[in-house]
């Protein structure tokens, strides 16, 4: 198991890792507060000690001594002392100085300077005190080095306590995140398979743990089982209905054909027999369409899908329907690209979808005298558009016409079984295509947008 997972961005958005980071931040704040509290206390105490030292040193000098005596005293002390640790300095009223450093007066403050390069001052800075004596000014300063050392110690303590705990938390968080990410990924994969129509897909828990994720996994499995049972039942019912209804329908067809054969052409009886045959055929067509929609909605297999050319399909269907359109004085125009526009799907189903849309336009858009077919391709996908200039469909009815057997009030008397667009909707859904009915101002504009071929 590599420490750096490949799916970083996903992992960073996972709940365990977020919690780990939150804990690290909280822990860091508490740590910083307590450690800096301790540091400030100790720092104050150290500075107090230094100040006491300085005061003690200062009080060792005789206030009333002469400048010469003080100079000798300071020189003696200064010689024995490293100026990096402590500075003694006397500036006599006569301007002569003694000590292990130099002093400059700047805005009423005394600033220490090193005497020479062999006696460097401490870089940590000094605490200093200046006292006016009878014959001059005495300065005693002590290095803040102990305070700096203290700070270094505390930073080390902070690093030693903070880094290991932070690293441990992140590593632990990552580990947990990856573990649950793998499980979440498997649950997602299972859901994806189910959504794609494979209802036999199941999530299998690889550990014995009983937690929220395993419960979600079980839920997914229960859902898939129910769905599978329902689809199996639907298929069985469809097959049973198909068989039980088709046999009598077949017999009716047979008997009517027998009857027609015995009647003389052109007689009243023969006309009745022909009408009965037409009605039987209509029943068969409704039945067939319903069954087909049920089968497609029940998840027809998409394994046989291929890359098919929308332009070729459009040309074929325009070619097929052109004479029929011409018969009712409709101009069937088109705007098709020269090259192919591929979509992933089933040729027969997509052809049938276009045929149904065209038949719908021929039946209901007759008054417009124009039907236009176009194919184009954009970032959104491959689009097939059929528009007419007929009466169109009111906005509030557009969803309903996609439902089975729904027909607009004014269309009750026109032929068609009210299933054409429902079948188009089912085919669109199976192809992940977006079916949209819009106003063509005037007329209906049906567009079918397929996802881009990968």
């Amino acid at each position: 198991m590599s420490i750096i997972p490949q799916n970083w961005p996903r992992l960073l958005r996972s709940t365990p890792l977020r919690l780990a980071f939150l804990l690290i931040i909280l822990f860091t704040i508490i740590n910083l507060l307590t450690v800096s509290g301790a540091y400030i206390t100790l720092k104050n105490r150290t500075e107090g000690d230094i100040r006491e030292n300085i005061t003690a040193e200062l009080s060792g000098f005789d206030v009333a001594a002469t400048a010469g005596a003080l100079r000798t005293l300071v020189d003696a002390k200064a010689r024995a002392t490293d100026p990096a640790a402590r500075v003694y300095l006397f500036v006599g009223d006569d301007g002569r100085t003694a000590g292990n450093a130099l002093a400059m007066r700047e805005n009423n403050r005394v600033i220490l300077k090193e005497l020479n390069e062999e006696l460097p001052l401490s870089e940590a800075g000094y605490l200093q005190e200046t006292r006016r004596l009878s014959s001059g000014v005495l300065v005693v300063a002590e290095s803040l080095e102990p305070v700096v050392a203290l700070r270094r110690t505390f930073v080390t303590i902070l690093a030693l306590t903070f880094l290991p705990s932070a690293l441990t938390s992140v590593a632990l968080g990552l580990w947990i995140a990856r573990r649950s990410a793998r499980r979440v990924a498997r649950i997602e994969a299972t859901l994806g398979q189910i959504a794609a129509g494979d209802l036999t897909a199941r999530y299998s828990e690889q550990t014995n743990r009983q937690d929220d994720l395993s419960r979600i996994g079980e839920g997914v499995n229960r859902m898939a089982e129910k769905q599978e049972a329902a689809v199996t039942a639907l298929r069985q019912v469809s097959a049973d209905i198909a068989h039980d209804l088709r046999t009598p329908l077949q017999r009716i067809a047979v008997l009517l054909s027998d009857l027609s054969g015995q009647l003389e052409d052109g007689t009243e009886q023969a006309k009745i027999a022909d009408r009965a045959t037409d009605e039987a055929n209509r029943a068969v067509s409704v039945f067939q369409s319903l069954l087909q929609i049920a089968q497609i909605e029940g998840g027809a297999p998409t394994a046989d899908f291929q890359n098919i050319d929308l332009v070729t399909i459009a040309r074929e269907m325009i070619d097929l329907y052109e004479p029929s359109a011409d018969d009712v004085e409709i101009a069937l125009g088109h705007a098709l690209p020269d090259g192919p526009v591929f979509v992933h799907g089933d040729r027969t189903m997509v052809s049938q979808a276009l045929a149904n849309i065209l038949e719908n336009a021929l039946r209901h858009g007759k008054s417009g005298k124009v039907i236009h077919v176009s194919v184009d391709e954009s970032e959104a996908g491959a689009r097939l558009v059929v528009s007419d200039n007929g009466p169109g469909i009111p906005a509030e009815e557009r969803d309903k016409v996609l439902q089975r057997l729904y027909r607009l009030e004014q269309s009750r008397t026109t032929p068609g079984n009210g299933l054409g667009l429902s079948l188009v909707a089912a085919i669109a859904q199976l192809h992940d295509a977006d079916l949209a009915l819009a106003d063509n101002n005037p007329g209906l504009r049906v567009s079918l947008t397929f996802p881009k071929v990968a």
Partner: protein
Amino acid sequence: MKLLFVEDDQTTADYVMRGLSEEGHSVDHFASGKEALTQAMNTAYDVLIIDRMLPDLDGLSLIKSLRSAKISTPAIFLTAMSGLEDRIDGLRAGGDDYLVKPFAFGELSARVAALGRRLPMAATVDTVLKAGDLEMDLVARTVTRSGQNIDLLPREFSLLEHLLRRKGRVQTRTMLLEGVWNIHFDPQTNVVETHISRLRSKVDKPFNRDLILTVRGSGYKIDG
């Protein structure tokens, strides 16, 4: 032709058998898939007509068994299932054609005739097809009747060619859709009739005798 017919519904079976016999075929009928399989293994037939849903052995398995026994007699499935996958399943199992119930007898008869005469037709290499005084030159892609040139659109040419290649045999609406347009669904509009009437207005209307004949209840054909 000698036909084997497997169908468990007696009414349909009687009707189909009567029709096929009237057309001069000799038909052996079985209601059981197993019996039919034994019979087909031992007797030579021209075409097999097989219902897909049988009480004992289903039609798909029957054809699969025959095909694995190297019996390649053309077979047409009759089925109550019209799903796309069912059609593909049938063809994959070794079926040659597929007819959904309920079907008209004319449809079955035309398809059986097409299957029975499939081999000789594939051998034709003529570049000129003739019917009466009509001639179609497949290389030059021209059509003449009584020496008169007839201008046809590409699709009209294909439709006429399809009928001429099957001279004397009825072609149903669905057979034309499949053969000329490669379409495997049933349009609700009379598209085929419209195309035929276009073709007729060019090929038949200006002349005395109609070449493209309508066969009532079945389809169309061109006689020699």
